[in-house]
């Protein structure tokens, strides 16, 4: 994994990815449109960040249909939770140490 010396995860350098992970950390599953609304992003922008997180195996995808409309839901994987928790701790430590 690409972890820098300070314990911060490279995948979370973008605040948008951090935001996605934060939402998924406190919700079992979240659909694409809700994420879009929370983060105030365009479809393409959100999709590319989601793909990035999926590549890292931090989030999983659950596809289903509501009537005829495809409904994509995202959730946090165990791997993602571990990385996110570690990142949070590292952030807190950094702030503490700089004070």
């Amino acid at each position, binding site marked *: 994994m690409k972890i820098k010396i*300070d314990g911060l995860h490279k995948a979370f350098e973008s605040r948008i990815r*951090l*935001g996605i992970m934060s*939402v998924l950390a*406190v*919700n079992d599953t979240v659909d694409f449109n*809700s994420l879009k609304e929370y983060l105030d992003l365009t479809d393409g922008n959100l999709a590319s960040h989601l793909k990035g997180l999926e590549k890292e195996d931090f989030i999983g995808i659950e596809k289903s249909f509501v009537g005829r409309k495809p409904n994509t839901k995202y959730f946090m994987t165990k791997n993602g939770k571990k990385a996110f928790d570690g990142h*949070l701790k590292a952030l807190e430590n950094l702030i503490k140490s700089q004070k």
Partner: protein
Amino acid sequence: MKKEEEYIKDLTEIRTMMERSTKFLSLTGWSGILAGLYALIGAFISYRLFYNTHGSIISNTIDREEISQNVSGLFLVAFIVFVLAMGTSVLLSFVKSKKRGEKLWNPASRRLLLNMTIPLVTGGIFIMILFSKGFYDLLAPASLVFYGLTLINAGKFTYDEVKIVGYVEIVLGLVGLYFVGYGLLLWAIGFGLIHIFYGLYMHYKYEK
């Protein structure tokens, strides 16, 4: 390395996103103030219409038919107050959520509503049963208790202050169950004054 400010911004973003996606924060102080006013007016009308002549609606000297007629009127007043308060709250939340760039109907508000509905409907059925069995003096305190439980449940999915209001309503309800004659007075305090205090507090804390 990023600067400390950047880390703090990261943490703020995490917190905001967690809150935004789990809590419904489009409730307004004005909803509380107006709900309180409706309740006070409703309580006043009930008092003038139904309590005045007998001192208390529960009096063994009046016949059952008259009581149930009066209580039906009380129900109507309570129902109108409930609909007005809910309507106002939904309308004002709609305006606020639009300002915040969110939809009113999102996962957070769905969760809030679902968690409110269970104790609220249970309470509603409970009160109907009390009514049908003739326990008229328990209606007001029971509505306070179940409303309090509803708010405590709802408090997990919106502002924390809502929970505190819930505790107060439960205490008022239990007091009303014990001191039977004071049902309407406590109802007016719980649904009227407490709502107004809560609304003013929320308005000055979050909307100023």
